[in-house]
């Protein structure tokens, strides 16, 4: 034990002991027996006072050791082990455990154990409100149990235990009970109020370490989720075809998920030397669940489009796939069609999606709304095909409701009407120009309010020079 650092109070007490010894020495030399007895009595009192101060100093030394180990130790287990080891010098125990309330707020996990059998079922399956530890979590009050056999809350988790001390640990941040510091002894009446106070101080130190560890893990976890989401976003973006110019068609698409990943997608691919298939689709919901369904829909639609001729049948097959793999209430709206550049026409079917806008050279717009119900909503359905003329100079615009339902701060929506008026000004423009104009207009309309939904646009311009 180090004896160099003494508190002012302790120094004063020690000085008194020394003074009394001096007095005693004088009395002895003078032979005054009555006074010697009185002086001895006073000396004993002073010595006791100093002695107890010395114990306090040992406690303080322990605390500073713990504080030091907090700054040194890396893992939580190391820290708790330091604390419990230090404690063993001051408070006797046969078993010690540090228990932490799980995130569900109902179960309690053993974070550090010493002197217990680790496979004890009662030890690892503790619940808030049950047992001594569970009771302390519930009440937030220290329990000194002099005789566990007489305590109604006691659940035996260890053979030989006769008395117990359980001290709550409080979150330094919120003040809530985050766990329990628990000591068990094979002797009756092993713990005093003073022991409880000392353990409380240590428990507070343990709580800091525990909370720090928990925050650290949460940060690591969040970081990992962010990394995985970023990866998912890259994968999803890579599923979108590159903007291109094919079969005399100028094609430009854009998809902005409101979260890292989304349920919107567009697609296009050539089916022959004159046919280009196009898709605009919106999966119910947002985020990861929508993205998973989206990937499935995209795959099945690509396969069906290449193996089945009839658009109605293609959608029936995709409906079977989506309905059999989705939850009730999940569905996908799909606008699917084929541009035939040799016969100047589009054959399409609209499964519950916002109608595509077909703009001709005169600035007139036709809405492509024929088809059927959304895909996946019901086990069966019929999707009708329609044919519309499509000539050089015409533009097909497909979009999702994230565009028409984009809200401004007043809660007004962009609307299909506004999109139509805007599109009418786009005769003769390239696909990229059209998409950029719409995007800028939507952003200006929403006045920087973040988009609540995924926003996706695809323009297909039949180029004039193509013959």
């Amino acid at each position, binding site marked *: 034990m180090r004896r160099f650092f003494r508190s002012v109070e302790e120094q004063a007490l020690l000085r008194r002991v020394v003074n009394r010894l001096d007095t005693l020495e004088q009395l002895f030399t003078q032979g005054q027996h009555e006074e010697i007895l009185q002086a001895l009595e006073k000396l004993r009192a002073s010595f006791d006072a100093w002695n107890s101060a010395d114990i306090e100093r040992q406690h303080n030394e322990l605390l500073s050791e713990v504080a030091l180990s907090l700054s040194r130790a890396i893992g939580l287990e190391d820290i708790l082990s330091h604390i419990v080891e230090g404690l063993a010098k001051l408070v006797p125990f046969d078993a010690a455990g540090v228990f932490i309330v799980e995130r569900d707020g109902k179960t309690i996990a053993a974070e550090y154990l010493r002197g217990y059998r680790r496979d004890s079922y009662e030890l690892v399956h503790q619940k808030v409100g049950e047992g001594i530890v569970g009771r302390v979590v519930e009440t937030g009050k220290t329990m000194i149990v002099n005789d566990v056999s007489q305590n109604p809350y006691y659940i035996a988790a260890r053979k030989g235990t006769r008395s117990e001390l359980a001290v709550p640990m409080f979150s330094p941040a919120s003040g809530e009970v985050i766990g329990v510091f628990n000591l068990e002894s094979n002797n009756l009446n092993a713990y005093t109020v003073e022991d409880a106070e000392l353990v409380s101080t240590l428990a507070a130190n343990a709580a800091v370490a525990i909370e720090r560890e928990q925050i650290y893990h949460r940060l690591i976890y969040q970081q990992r989720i962010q990394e995985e989401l970023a990866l998912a976003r890259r994968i999803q973006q890579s599923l979108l075809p590159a903007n291109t110019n094919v079969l005399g068609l100028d094609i430009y698409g854009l998809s902005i998920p409101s979260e890292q990943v989304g349920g919107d997608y567009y697609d296009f691919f050539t089916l022959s030397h004159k046919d280009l298939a196009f898709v605009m689709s919106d999966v*119910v919901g947002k985020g990861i669940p929508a993205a998973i369904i989206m990937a499935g829909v995209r795959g099945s639609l690509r396969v069906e489009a290449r193996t089945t001729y009839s658009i109605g049948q293609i959608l029936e097959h995709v409906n079977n796939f989506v309905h059999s793999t989705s939850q009730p209430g999940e569905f996908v709206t799909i606008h699917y069609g084929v541009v035939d550049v040799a016969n100047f026409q589009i054959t399409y079917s609209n499964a519950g999606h916002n109608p595509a806008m077909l703009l001709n050279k005169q600035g007139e717009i036709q809405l492509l*709304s024929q088809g059927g119900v*959304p895909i996946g909503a019901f086990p069966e359905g019929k999707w009708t095909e329609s044919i519309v003329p499509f000539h050089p100079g015409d533009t097909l615009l497909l979009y999702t409701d994230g565009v028409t339902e984009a809200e401004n701060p007043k809660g007004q929506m962009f609307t299909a009407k506004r999109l139509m008026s805007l599109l009418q000004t786009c005769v003769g423009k390239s696909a990229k120009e059209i998409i950029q104009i719409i995007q800028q207009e939507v952003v200006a309309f929403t006045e920087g309010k973040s988009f609540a939904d995924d926003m996706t646009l695809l323009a297909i311009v039949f180029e004039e020079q193509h013959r």
Partner: protein
Amino acid sequence: MGMTHHTAKEFGEVVVFYLKGKLMGGPESSEVAEEIRNYIASGTRKFVIDLGDVDWINSSGLGMLIGGLTSVRNVGGTLILARLTEKIESLLVITKLSTVFETCPTVEEALTKV
């Protein structure tokens, strides 16, 4: 952004759900779907959903209605949507769900038809 409120009332063998606010998926929507399933489990086969005070439905909200309709039809029951606003009517037309859902201008009429 979710639905602000919903209540359910029984009229004989028909259960009427009164929805209010925005129907945007979310926990309140799942509550309605759950309640419909509970009513079905306890024997109810006829449902009316009053949408007169619903300002907006998004696709997740539609999903809830479709889920409800599917659960009801699976047990041979009926579900009618009542008091559709113009906005919601046009949404059902766009999504072609108007061909699937039976609708009524008033709850009273729905009660006689369901």
